[in-house]
């Protein structure tokens, strides 16, 4: 299949404006004849559901948490970018576009990214109108900060809780439409399948997590806003419930999965403290503005630290290796996420890690405290320091923080065209669930922007273009296709419950996570990836013969819920590895050790790999088919990133 990205013609800056005019519209009186399903109530889902309901469509919104307000977007800390140029420091739509394309290591579409930069300004207006309490200056106007190494201050923030405030804004808009009767909410409901009829998405099948009821919902279009799949690694900064199930089931129904191997590893997370660890906690990136990253110069000293024979403060300055400052004199501790992460891995691989597991480096505020005083540092980072102390029991004012990289974000996702439509007509993917705008690496404060751009300002236009061509009649949920899908799901549940093996679901999840982290994590090799494929296949086999899922299908059953999710991760994992294996280059979050510059930086191969790799499902346990969407760069020049 030729992947048609439907990028409109015309100059970059005019594409979206012109296209909005060219798209078909649905007459206001007819909008209420259409039903739209929105799966997910994070930034992307809540904003889409609210905006579509405001336009007059009938919306059904689904999430697996007990309330739409708890979607994982709530956890985002740092901020949201927008090309407002309120600071008069030279920002512009074009600069945000350029930074995002470059930050993504030239693996995203120019047209999409430019549109994102254009609508970024509307997002801030919208959120402020909803009552989102962004940080302000004394004069009463909005404050900005620079974030993630950007050279302009374009990040809007609400203390360390930007995601929460933005989501609560979108949730309030959604709640208003629930009250209006335009949105019907289905919390604690998990999407299990997309139903297609005549090649078009016409509904979904869900499981009510409390009663276990399998139910069908019919609609004219289905939007998947189900977030990222970082939890394939078991340990990540994602919420415990984040999963790939919705996207994966759609994939199996014909939606291509793009760039699955692009994962972002965030450098400043609290290290793993033991086998019991269930998730990892992000410490805001902003800490690197004042903290200095180091490990001891020698293995011997590191060993003594690990055995607690010496304390960090016992190590003299000349015995410390501030390796980021040493290797990247101009960017120092502020190098991009992927570079900082990889270097932490290198020094720990050399045996210089500083905690019991040997997988941690120091982030030290000693010098900043001497320079600015404890009060200043506490004013800036007090809440983060407290959180760190709460979790680790150590006081970062007195002893350096320990940090280590952790899986944080997945740039890959369902392939979508310029309209955010997947390869299945009528099926859309928004937010982190799609692959669209971040290329091989996402810049800080851009995911929130993208989720809201998709939901508030893109889908309300593009969905009309599709629905205008749809009949008003809904398909009945007694249609053969719904019945078929319901049966398959019930069979699958029966199967999971009947295996009655010896190992728990978590056990499989942890083992999968270890394989993914080891072979498909921060640095990858062809050899390791080959090995991983076999291991994952084995593990999958074992899962289906030896997993133990307790309870019944018709009650609240956490192990059954997890079993579904882990079963899908076990399939996705293999695809990620295959994608990583086929991409014989390093770019952004995908680092293949074979492809690096002499200085150890990612070495792209623009000639052979400047494309989106979109995989087509060919059947269970059959190798997937790769499809390529070439990336054409008409406005930017491809350059090698350098932070020396």
């Amino acid at each position, binding site marked *: 299949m030729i992947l048609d990205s439907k990028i409109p013609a015309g100059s970059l800056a005019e594409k979206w404006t012109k296209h909005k005019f060219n798209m078909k519209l649905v007459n206001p009186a007819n909008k209420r004849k259409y039903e739209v399903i929105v799966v997910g109530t994070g930034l992307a889902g809540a904003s889409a559901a609210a905006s579509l309901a405001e336009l007059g469509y009938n919306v059904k919104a689904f999430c697996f948490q007990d309330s739409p*307000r708890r979607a994982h977007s*709530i956890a985002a800390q740092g901020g949201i970018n927008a090309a407002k140029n309120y600071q008069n420091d030279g920002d512009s739509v074009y600069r945000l576009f350029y930074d995002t394309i470059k930050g993504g290591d030239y693996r995203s579409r120019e047209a999409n990214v430019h549109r994102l930069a254009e609508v970024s300004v509307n997002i801030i207006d919208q959120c402020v109108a*909803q009552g989102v309490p962004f940080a302000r200056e004394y004069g009463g106007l909005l404050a900005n900060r620079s974030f993630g190494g950007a050279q302009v201050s374009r990040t809007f923030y609400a203390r360390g809780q930007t995601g929460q405030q933005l989501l609560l804004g979108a949730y*309030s808009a959604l709640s*208003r439409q629930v009250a209006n009767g335009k949105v019907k909410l289905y919390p604690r409901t998990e999407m299990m399948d997309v139903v297609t009829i005549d090649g078009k998405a016409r509904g979904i099948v869900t499981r009510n997590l409390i009663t276990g009821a399998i139910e069908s919902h019919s609609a004219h279009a289905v939007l998947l806003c189900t977030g990222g799949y970082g939890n394939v690694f078991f340990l990540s900064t994602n919420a415990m419930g984040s999963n790939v199930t919705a996207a994966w089931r759609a994939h199996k129904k014909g939606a291509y999965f793009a760039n699955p191997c692009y994962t972002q590893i965030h450098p400043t997370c609290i290290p793993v403290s*033991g086998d019991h660890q269930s998730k990892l*906690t992000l410490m805001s990136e902003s800490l690197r503005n004042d903290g200095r990253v180091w490990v001891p110069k020698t293995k011997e000293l590191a060993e003594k630290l690990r055995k607690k024979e010496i304390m960090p403060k016992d190590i003299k300055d000349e015995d410390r290796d501030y390796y980021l400052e040493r290797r990247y004199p101009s960017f120092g501790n502020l190098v991009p996420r992927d570079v900082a992460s990889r270097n932490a891995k290198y020094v720990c691989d050399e045996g210089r890690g500083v905690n019991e597991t040997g997988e941690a480096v120091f982030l030290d505020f000693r010098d900043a405290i001497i320079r600015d005083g404890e009060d200043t540092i506490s004013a800036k980072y007090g809440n983060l320091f407290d959180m760190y102390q709460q979790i680790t*029991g150590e006081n970062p004012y007195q002893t350096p923080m320990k940090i280590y990289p952790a899986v944080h974000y997945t740039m890959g996702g369902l392939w979508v065209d310029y309209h955010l439509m997947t390869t299945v007509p009528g099926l859309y993917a928004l937010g982190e669930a799609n692959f669209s705008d971040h290329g091989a690496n996402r810049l800080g404060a851009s995911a929130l922007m993208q989720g809201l751009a998709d939901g508030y300002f893109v889908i309300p236009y593009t969905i009309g273009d599709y629905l205008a061509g749809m009949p008003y009649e809904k398909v009945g949920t007694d249609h053969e296709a719904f019945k078929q899908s319901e049966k398959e799901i019930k069979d699958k549940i029966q199967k999971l419950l009947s295996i009655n093996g010896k190992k728990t679901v978590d056990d499989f999840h942890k083992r999968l996570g270890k394989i993914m982290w080891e072979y498909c994590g921060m640095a990858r090799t062809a050899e390791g990836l080959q090995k991983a494929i076999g291991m994952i296949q084995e593990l999958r086999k074992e899962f289906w013969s030896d997993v133990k899922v307790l309870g019944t299908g018709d*009650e609240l059953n956490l192990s059954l819920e997890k079993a579904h999710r882990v079963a899908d991760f076990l399939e996705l994992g293999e695809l990620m590895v295959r994608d990583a294996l086929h991409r014989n280059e390093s770019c952004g979050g995908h680092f293949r050790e074979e492809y690096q510059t002499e200085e150890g930086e990612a070495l792209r191969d623009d000639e052979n790999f400047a494309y989106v790799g979109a995989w087509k499902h060919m059947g269970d346990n059959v190798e997937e088919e790769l499809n390529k969407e070439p990336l054409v760069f008409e406005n930017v020049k491809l350059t090698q990133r350098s932070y020396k």
Partner: protein
Amino acid sequence: MNLTLKVWRQKNSSDKGGFVNYSIADISEDMSFLEMLDVLNEELSEKGEDPVHFDHDCREGICGMCSLHINGKPHGPQQTTTCQLHMRSFKDGDTITIEPWRAAAFPVVKDLVVDRGSFDRIIQAGGYVSVNTGGVPDANEIPIPKKIADEAFDAATCIGCGACVAACKNASAMLFTSAKISQLAMLPQGKVERKERAEKMIAQMDEEGFGACTNTGACSIECPKGISLTNIARMNREYFSAIVSSENV
């Protein structure tokens, strides 16, 4: 450390439920409270027993999903969320009592899981500014004094966990409701609908079966986000001024 857990088990909303004791060994003090329960659940699963169901998602103290009443206090001995509570706060040999939130408006779904849909319905009754997407003024056209923005922010940090209800002797939802009413009443964007909002949200709160406020202050002390009682006072003002001056006769 070794602990005894006294856990509320209840099959579903119609089951009567009761406490079951479990003993659990080799718990490290670096574990979070929920990781300790994960360990218990792995053990139960291995033995073929139904794991203890509890709500949780972000495990970062922000989604508001975790909701355990631990040793007589919502979210346990510290002023934080259950997921941010660490085993350091306990000592070897302790018996820990774990119960669900208790309130008529939060019916138990299973074990320690409760249904907090009543909070959503309170917000649906008016916890928003009625603006459609698009067609809004430029963000900087609405200047807001920093102090006010900060105070509105403090109110807006509520995570909707329900610990306030769980702590209150009357199972009152005043702190939760007042946080939203306050946030929007302070900001110019929310002022347009403030009377209507106060009346409707409070009517909904009553309808859900939450109790009244005796101003004991327990809610604010147990609130993991430290939402202040001044919000309740502000809500009361909003309501009293609404009833004598709103258009709804």
